[in-house]
Each structure stands twice: as structure tokens, then as C-alpha cells.
């Protein structure tokens, strides 16, 4: 099936070359960082995680989002998703690969990464995260490949694969829950120390992941003559709307708890994110525009998605999904991780601004993910076309 990636229209090759360019820049930036040290990033003693870990956190959600296709199709026998379930599984593969690359980019001693396995530490959430992420990657590769092969041969997939398909559902939930636990179990970080982090992560994941799949469906309709079907798309939109509303509801609850209780520890990070914080006469408000963009884009997208006329138009629908994806990226892929470090344990404020080198690596990893997803989708759609004749 791999040979399907070798044939394509010029646009396909231009797209791959475009991604390849970013990958090359990213690789060059990484070599620099590897040689000189993580000092080349904007991270500091006080904001000790930056873009890499925040992208990782967001992308775990994108990976988990694929389950919103798998679950209705396999558990509720919702046939309309038959054509696109594979898109969810393949997107999950690409997202997890990006997650692992971001983790490697963030390590100070990447050559020692295997120490996590060599010296297993069951007390550390990172240990479990490594297990579930790799497990989920494996499950998606296995299920995606076996089912696609069966489709190509036009036979029913073997019975045993369903065990792994069902297994992948709790795994999808677990990857994002355990990722939330990286944060919500740390005693000194008030912003993260909240039991709602895991549900909130899941809600935003179940909106952002399917939104990206919907965008993919719309793009594939134009460039690859692949129609996911209106019914399937409408169902996806419903899922996205509910999940997005839930996420906004959870964010609202965080605001209530913080501002009604009036406890400084709970207020500080939110204050810093949305309104800026003054400290020793200096105003710190780096994240404010991003956070308000998140709010505006999220509600704007939801408003568009619930409007029947808007969702009938492919272009408007695509824009709405993109808005939602960007909104939740701002929420989780920028704000959540960075704001957790403000103020630092000694009550000081240090702001984080990523460097060019760091952004280069980040774009490189994203480009790698898009490359993987493009190749996998090429294969999946090639097979569908072949079967349909």
C-alpha cells in the first residue's frame, strides 16, 4: 500500500516539498540546540517549560480526538462514519509522533531518554504517560493498517482486531487524562492544581481533534475527490459543538472558583492570562491578546457551527472549524502551560518569549506531523478509490 504515496498530482508534490522545507529548517535548528543547549530557547529557570511541552499537551488532545470517530462507529454501529474512521486513526498516529518529537526536543539530555524505561518510576506521571502514549500509537498503527488492508482485499477485517479497536477507546481517554495528571498533581502550582483539568482537556480534545478531521474532509473533497458524506459531517459538527461548549463551561467554572473564592493563588494565573498582572510597577501581559483571541474565536466558531445556513457552505464550515482549532490551540497549546509558571514559587513574574530557533524546531515538528498525515491519508484514500473502482 505504501506505493500509493509515490504517485500524485503536482500539487501533492509541491505540498510535500513545502513541508520538507520546514522539516529541514527544523532539523537544522535542532542540531544547533543539541550542540549549544536549551539556552537557545526562551525558557528560563522560572518558566522551565515552553512551546515544546505546550505543543505536546495540545497534540495529545488531537490524538485523543480521533476516538470521537472510532467510538460511534464501532460501539454504536454508526455506519456513516465508516469512511472516515480511518482518518481519525491516522491523524492520531501523526499527532502522537509529533508529541514524541516535542518531548525529545525538550529533553536536556535526549540521548538518555531510555532512562525512563531503564529506571521505571511508578511514582512519576511521566512514566505512565510514556506507556500510554506509545501504547496508543501502537494500537492506532495496528488497527489502521489491518482494517485498511482488509478493505483493500475487500474482505472483512479479522475478528481479533476488534479487541484492539475497543482497547484503543480507553487508551484514547487515558492519554489525555494522564497528560492532565502531569500538571494537576503538582502541589505548588495553583493554576494546574484543579480536578477539572482532565475533563477540560478531554472536552477541548474532543472538539479540536474532530474539527481538524472535518477540515481534512473538506480539503480531501476538493483535492482528492473524497466525499465523507454530509450526514457524517453533520454528526461531527454536533460532536464538536457539544465538546466545545463543555470546554468553555469548564473554563467558566475555573473563573468562578477563582474570583468568587477570592483566593490569590487561584486568581493569579487567570489574572495574568486574561488581564495582565502588575508586579513592582511593571505590567506583565504577554498572554492577554492570545487569551482573548481564544475566547472570541471559540464563541465565534460555535456561533457559526450552530447556524444551519453557515454549516451548509463548505468554505464557512471550514473557516469555523479552523477558528475552533486555533482557539483551542491558544487555550491549551499556549496559555495553559505557560501561565502555570506565573507567578513563580517565590511570587516573582518572569515572562517567556520563544526564540526564533525554538520556533524553527516547533514548525519543523508540525511540518513532520503534516507530512505523516498527508502520506497516510494518501494511502487511505488511494485504497478507497481503488475499492470503489
Amino acid at each position, binding site marked *: 500500500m505504501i506505493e500509493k504515496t509515490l504517485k500524485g498530482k503536482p500539487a501533492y508534490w509541491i505540498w510535500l516539498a513545502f513541508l520538507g522545507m520546514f522539516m529541514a529548517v527544523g532539523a537544522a535548528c535542532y542540531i544547533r540546540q543539541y550542540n549549544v543547549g536549551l539556552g537557545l530557547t526562551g525558557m528560563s529557570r522560572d518558566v522551565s517549560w515552553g512551546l515544546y511541552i505546550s505543543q505536546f499537551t495540545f497534540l495529545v488532545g488531537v490524538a485523543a480526538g480521533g476516538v470521537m470517530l472510532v467510538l460511534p462507529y464501532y460501539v454504536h454501529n454508526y455506519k456513516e462514519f465508516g469512511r472516515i474512521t480511518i482518518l481519525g486513526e491516522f491523524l492520531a498516529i501523526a499527532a502522537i509522533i509529533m508529541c514524541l518529537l516535542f518531548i525529545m526536543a525538550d529533553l*536536556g539530555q535526549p540521548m538518555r531518554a531510555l532512562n525512563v524505561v531503564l529506571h521505571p518510576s511508578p511514582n512519576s506521571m511521566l512514566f505512565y504517560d510514556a506507556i500510554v502514549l506509545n501504547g496508543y500509537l501502537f494500537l492506532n498503527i495496528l488497527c489502521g493498517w489491518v482494517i485498511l488492508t482488509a478493505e483493500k482485499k475487500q474482505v472483512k477485517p479479522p475478528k481479533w482486531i476488534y479487541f484492539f479497536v475497543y482497547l484503543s477507546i480507553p487508551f484514547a481517554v487515558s492519554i489525555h487524562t494522564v497528560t492532565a495528571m502531569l500538571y494537576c498533581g503538582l502541589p*505548588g502550582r495553583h493554576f494546574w492544581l484543579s480536578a477539572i483539568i482532565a475533563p477540560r482537556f478531554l472536552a477541548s480534545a474532543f472538539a479540536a481533534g474532530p474539527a481538524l478531521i472535518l477540515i481534512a474532509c473538506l480539503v480531501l473533497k476538493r483535492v482528492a475527490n473524497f466525499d465523507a458524506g454530509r450526514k457524517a459531517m453533520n454528526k461531527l459538527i454536533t460532536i464538536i459543538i457539544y465538546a466545545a461548549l463543555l470546554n468553555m463551561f469548564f473554563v467558566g467554572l475555573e473563573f468562578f472558583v477563582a474570583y468568587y473564592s477570592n483566593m490569590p493563588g487561584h486568581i493569579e494565573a487567570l489574572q495574568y492570562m486574561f488581564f495582565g498582572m502588575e508586579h513592582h510597577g511593571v505590567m506583565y501581559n504577554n498572554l492577554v491578546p492570545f487569551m482573548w483571541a481564544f475566547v472570541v474565536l471559540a464563541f465565534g466558531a460555535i456561533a457559526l457551527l450552530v447556524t444551519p445556513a453557515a454549516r451548509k457552505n463548505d468554505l464557512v464550515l471550514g473557516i469555523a472549524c479552523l477558528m475552533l482549532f486555533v482557539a483551542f490551540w491558544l487555550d491549551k497549546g499556549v496559555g495553559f502551560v505557560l501561565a502555570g509558571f506565573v507567578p513563580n514559587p517565590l511570587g516573582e513574574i518572569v515572562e517567556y518569549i520563544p526564540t526564533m530557533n525554538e520556533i524553527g524546531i516547533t514548525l519543523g515538528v508540525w511540518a513532520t506531523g503534516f507530512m505523516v498525515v498527508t502520506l497516510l491519508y494518501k494511502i487511505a484514500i488511494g485504497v478507497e478509490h481503488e475499492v470503489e473502482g
Partner: protein
Amino acid sequence: MDKHRRKFLKIAGASVVAGIGAPAIIKLTATPALASGQGVAAAGHEAAPAAEHGGQGGHGEEAPQGVRLGMVIDLRKFNERPELLDAAIATCIAVHNIPEFPNSKDEVKWIWKAPFSGVFPEHSSQHSAKKITGNPAVSLCNHCDEPPCVRACPTQATFRNSANGIVAMDYHRCIGCRFCMAACPYGSRSFNWYDPRPYIKKYNKDFPSRMKGVVEKCNFCSERLALGQEPACVEACQGTGAITFGDLNDPNSGVRRLLDKEFSIQRKPSIGSKPSVFYIV
């Protein structure tokens, strides 16, 4: 001087009584070569659960077991003689090859001055006395009895040495994930964003320098304890009573006698990490 020395040998002695042989002490308190050895981490870990959780019941105080090294810092003494604190900090930097980066973003700090309200947010009052607001407090690793950094570390590169309660680091195992930095509620940990060696002012060949990409922090001078010496910062303040060091589990130790007598506080007690560094204000 002699009295001090004897006190330290007593700490070592206590460890022997607690069933840890003399060779083990040298190993646990890490000579430079051993500080990186796998044996250290393993030794620190296997014994840990038994020692940590024995005798805990209900709401009562836990029955202390083994040695738990701790420190009592008398901020009043530092307020009287600020140069003492500078000397203590300078000694630590010199002894431990701590790099001094020009950029605050890259800083590596083991012990440093900070405002009282930053070090003790839970003890700060709206209208603090001048002696509190006008003088710096001092921050260093608390060698917590229930350390969040150890809980978070995915490789056991940071671990609690069950023989003496010191929270130690294995620089050769650390993968540089910085999970421990997010986990430490006191900001006690630093990361080597660059190769630290060019930024070490005066190299002390008796202590290993670190490499880029690993985390480090105050080690309670394990390497000096192994030689029967006091921690360097304690020695720098000798005779003033500004810093007292000893076994918190021994009712007759200097630290305990001081704590029995004076009102003391620990940093962020609500966190539940049980710091082994106490402050008298």
C-alpha cells in the same frame, strides 16, 4: 572547632547505629566519583519505603526513624550581620562549582537571597515589621521529607536518601525533562541551559562540575558530610548560630534543642512536603 567536629562524627555514628554500615555512609553521602554511580541511587531507593512509612498511624505524629538531616536558619542573626549571609552564599558557589551566568534567564542557584514575602508567602502579614520587610530572607532546597520533586522524577535521578533524608541528584541519570522543576513548590532547582563550565569563576577540582541539560540544586553538602565536615554554608557562619545543622530525629541534637526552645517556621507548610529547613524569624 573541635566540638563541631565531634558533633558531625556523631551524626555519622547515628547512622551506624541505625544499621547503615560505615562504608554505606561514604557511599550515601557521595564522594564525587560515587555521586554519579548507579549504586547510590539504588541504595537510596530500595530502603526508602520501609524507612519512610513505618509507624505512621491516624492523625498522630509519625514515629521518626533513622536520621533526617535538617537545618535551622536564624534570620535574626543574618539581619544583624548581613555580610554573614553573603559569605555563606559565596562559599557554596565556590565549593560546588556553581556557574555564574550573566543572563538571569540562565541562572543556576543553590542558595540565594529573596524577599521574606517571596520565601514565606503563607507567613506574610499585610503590615510586616521593618526588620522583616527591610531584610532579605534566604532560600535553598528544603530537603523535604515528602519531596514533590522526587515524586515527579521519571528516572529516579532525584531521590530521597533514606539513610539521612537528603534529597540527592544523580547528574548522570537525569534526562533533563525538568518535571522536578515544575514540581518543586519552592523554586529550589536550576537547569543547565548551557554548558556551565565556562561560567565557573574558580574551579574546585574536589567537586564535579555538571554538564548542560541536567538539573541541579543544593545537596546539603553530602560530599563534605562524607568527610565528617559540616556543610560549607554552616561552616561560613561558624560560631554565630546563624545556621545550625543536624539530625531532626535525634531529640538531643543541636537543631532539635534549638527548635524546642525557639519559635520556628517552615516554608509553605500547607503544601505538605515537610521541609527539613526551619527558620527562626
